[in-house]
């Protein structure tokens, strides 16, 4: 049956093998300026690309550059950005219809973005959760049985609109550390302290859409497939719908092509889009990464019941990677990270 497997594997992308990085070209250094302005917060990230990546995948983080950043609105009001490491600043609130520009000074060089206007985002009317079986997968694959989640909204008619969807899944963290216990002579798990601690999973694929084929009509977008599995028994999912600008859309589309088709015979050419809307004032040819995105967004939270009965399907049980430590007093701190938080998620129901 190998021949059938061969035919099949081409389509399910399983004939993939890791290779080392020994014959990559010499590393080049680029500046990254990535910023977002929304109705709720501001986020600015300025850094250099990685300096060196070894064949094993180890890398060196570059030294953060000396940076000053300012947001200027359409009336000329300046807001000095407090930090440029990508941490969210909720003291800044953007306004729909207002225009913003980012000015950045990095290691003595001046950069500025094109002016971006915050567009109104249509309401995220509802979320549809639909069970399906992906028969083309192996029965053992986690997403074989699962729930497809769609976002439903209505496009604003009469003008070109561009949208992005983003999902975030919060689950209460059952442990915050897996470590070797000399007393028990094996790897064990340590619960979080405080106990109100959540793991975060976000989408790593770009989901964007324009309304060229559906001006003014319903916007229905497949967002994510959630595997039919437990724990948790009730799966929290937050879906965000953003109204973005054409230049941000084009930039995100280029990121999408980096993940679309990869690992198949129909790969698109790998490409990076430089300078979507931020430029070096003195040297417009300098290649910059990142984008200045000004958007408004609407969100909804949905809980998927993993205990529901689905004929001829059973939820897969996800087991813990080790047992908990026998020392019931032992715990690990819940620290704020990109994949963990102590802040209670929006719409969280215990």
């Amino acid at each position, binding site marked *: *049956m*190998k*021949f*059938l497997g*061969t*035919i*099949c594997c*081409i*389509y*399910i992308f399983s*004939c*993939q*093998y*890791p*290779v*080392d990085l020994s*014959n990559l*070209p010499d590393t080049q250094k*680029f500046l*990254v300026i*990535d910023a977002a302005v929304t109705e709720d917060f501001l986020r600015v*990230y300025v*850094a250099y690309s*990685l300096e060196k990546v070894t064949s094993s995948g180890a*890398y060196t983080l570059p030294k953060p550059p000396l940076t000053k950043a300012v947001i200027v609105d359409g009336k000329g009001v300046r807001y000095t950005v407090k930090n440029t490491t990508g941490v969210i600043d909720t003291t800044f609130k953007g306004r729909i219809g207002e225009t913003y520009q980012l000015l950045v000074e990095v290691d003595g060089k001046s950069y500025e973005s094109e002016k971006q206007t915050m567009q109104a985002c249509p309401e995220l009317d509802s979320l549809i959760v639909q069970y399906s079986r992906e*028969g*083309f*997968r192996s*029965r053992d694959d986690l997403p074989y049985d699962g729930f497809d989640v*769609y976002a439903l909204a209505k496009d604003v008619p009469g003008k070109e609109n561009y949208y992005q969807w983003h999902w975030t899944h919060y689950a209460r963290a059952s442990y915050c550390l897996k470590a070797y216990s000399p007393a028990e002579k094996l790897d064990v798990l340590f619960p979080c302290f405080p106990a109100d601690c959540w793991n975060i999973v976000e989408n*790593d*694929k770009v989901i964007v*859409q*324009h309304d*060229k*084929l*559906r*001006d003014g009509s*319903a916007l*229905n977008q*497949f967002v994510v*497939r959630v595997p039919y599995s437990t724990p948790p028994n009730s799966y929290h999912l937050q879906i965000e719908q953003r109204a973005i600008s054409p230049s941000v859309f*084009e930039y995100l*589309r*280029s990121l999408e092509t*980096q*993940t*679309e*088709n*990869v*690992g198949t*015979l*129909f*790969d*698109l*050419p*790998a490409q*990076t*889009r430089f300078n979507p809307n931020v430029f070096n004032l003195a040297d417009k040819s300098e290649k910059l*990464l990142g984008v200045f995105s000004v958007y408004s967004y609407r969100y909804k939270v949905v809980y998927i019941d993993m205990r529901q009965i689905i004929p001829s399907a059973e939820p897969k049980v996800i087991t813990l990677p080790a047992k908990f430590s026998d020392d019931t007093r032992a715990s690990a701190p819940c620290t704020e990270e990109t994949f963990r938080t102590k802040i209670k998620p929006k719409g969280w129901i215990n």
Partner: protein
Amino acid sequence: MNNALHHIKYLGIVLCFCALESFAQTPCYFVARVTDAQTGEALHGAVLKMDGLETFQVTDSMGRVRMAVKCGEHNVSLSSLGYKPYSYRYSVQNDKPIVIKMENILTQLEEIVISSQSETRNLESPALGVSIMNLKAVQKLPPAAGELDVLRSLQSLPGVSAVGEGANGINIRGGSVDQNLILLDYMPIFNPTHLLGLFSIFPTDGIRELQLYKGSIPARYGGRTAGVLDVRLAEPNMEKFNLKGGIGMISNRLHAEVPIIQGKLGLLSSSRVSFNEYLIKFYNNVLLNSLGKRRLPNNKPVFFDLANKISWRPTNKDNISLTSYISHDSYRIDSLFSIAGIVPKQADLRYGHNNLALRWNHYFSPKFNLNLLAVQSDYKTSTESDQLKTGFKFDTRLIYQNFKSEITYSPNSLQRINAGFTVTRLKLTPGDLNSVEGSSISPKYLEVEKGLEAAFFISDEYELSKKLLAEFGLRVVRFWNLGPVTVPVFEEGSPKTPSTITSRVNINGIESGFNRLEPRLALRYKINDLSVIKIGYNRMNQFLHMLSNNSTPLPSVRWKNSNRYIPPQQSDLISMGLFKDTRLHVWEWSFETYYRWQRSIFDYLNGAELSINPDVETQLLPGKGKAYGAELMINKKKGVMTGWMSYTYARSFQKITGEYPEIQQLNGGQWYPSLIDKPHTLNALVNFQTEKHNAISFTFTYSTGRPYTAPVSFYRSGVRFLPIYTDRNNGRISDYHRLDFSWVITNPSMKEKRWEGSWIFTVYNLYGRKNAFSYFFNPEYTNFRPFKVSVFPSPIVSLTYNFKFE
């Protein structure tokens, strides 16, 4: 000027002298028509010799041959690829033609496996870069998964390559896949593969011969700039019924030839069907538990092809044939592509050809022949997604209609003229997007494109002297892109982008037209009876373009006519070759070198949207290309051990500057390797056949890895790290090599019966090398480590049973 006139005068005198000398010494002509004894089909390329002398003549496409000899008795001998040598003593008194029937001997021990051309045809014809294979030669090559594959077999020839295993189509001397004209019994094929590129679509049992033109392309072919693959179906057997077929692991074949009126009317039908969907279901439902392995995903892969041919010979001078060809593929595939920004989770993909050709061949005299041909090729694709709320159906279609009239005139044994005209009508439906029930997608239809191509061609093959033979050719072609069509008007002095469109113009008549002249030249100089030097030059133009920026094109790829913004692609190829045969025709070797210039080729913008874009001109970046190389081939044609070895050095580069280099150029406006630049290729085949029931073959292939775009660093974007790409094709994947094995057991019972069976046992990729098709970085899987895609990563053992009933 005087000097030039003097040279022309001198050349004229030489030509007259050569002709007169030849006529003065030859009061009689031996004239014959050579046919297949079983099918009555004319044999092209059979070699005629008289009295064991080294001088010879070769039959033309109608099987006719003419040789000047002294009147009286002569020993006539004929040989042809795959046929038993013919020898007879014949009294030549006048030029009355005789018919010689040659017996097909596919089971013969000593046979030619493959040839740059058959037997001594390579030394006789002025054409170079022409390869001919018959079905037997294809069968010698160990097939992948037991499927005989024409395109994969051709890749063993020097100068023919593919982007990788499983890629859709072949690349000839640095050309892209759409730059090859692929004909199946005169009908163009727009997608030559089944299973998205894994197997070629030709019905192998029905094939009589494959001719691959990668160098000298005769003037009768046009419309593509790289190569021509002319696959001819056999003529149906009009004498007796025969049936053959095969049961394989991927597909099953059945081929029948039925004489309807003895010697007058015959039918050929050749079909192939795959049952993979049912095999996968059977495996998952019945065998899975006993084997205890993983379930196989069911992509519902189904394909079939069916070729039918009816031939009618109302008189000895007429041959009328009607050929139809249908192919169909159907799969369910995972989110492999986006259409207008919609990436369906899964989609059903269907595509196929529906072709028809009517041909009338009339022999006015042994000197004059007329060939009329009417062809329609209809290629359709359909992609359908039933995804909730965003379901759609996307259809494309390409209709090609062609009429061709062609004469061949041989005024004497030194000259052969081929001339004719051809008219082609093209109708392209680039994309109809419809929503399915419950979907919010608005329908969108791209304008139908129409084109008309008219061409006149003439070629004159003339033996200037016993050593020097020349073929002059000229093709005069005119192409019109026709309305009704809406044409965008761009801001003057600005690049063509959606934002620089100032207005749109509706045109009902001719949108644009192009005149092109295509000179062709082939010269052969005979150093001695066994060695020749050849020089060739071609100019070719292409008015129909395939727009694809995938590594290998999807079946639903968009085709586009040339218009005011997309000029025809043009290629000039100059090639030179040295060919040598041995006295007993056991060994043959050839060395060819070439240089190719391409103009008006194009690459694509980053993130180009091609599928349903009405202004697709805005996504293209024009540029130019060049390719050069050298090909060496050594061929052992006879004996217990046969085979060949070829080495190719080939380079292919492109330079994409766009119309505004300062903002559009790729790779800094410098030459960079194209996707098919593989400098070194080595192919070898050894076939052992000690007796007629068993044959063992080994095939080895090696090539330098192809270029890919490698990242120059990584950066953090949100929660992931992304690779950074600057220049295109700046890296190279690992080298490719593979060893295959094949064992053919013919008629194991060793008894002469009407039913004869044979087994083909093959191991593809014997040592299981995980050859890379491409490298990629997937942020989903890992941050920095690249992965490779391997199409056939382990040995594939297969067994095919073939049968024959006569």
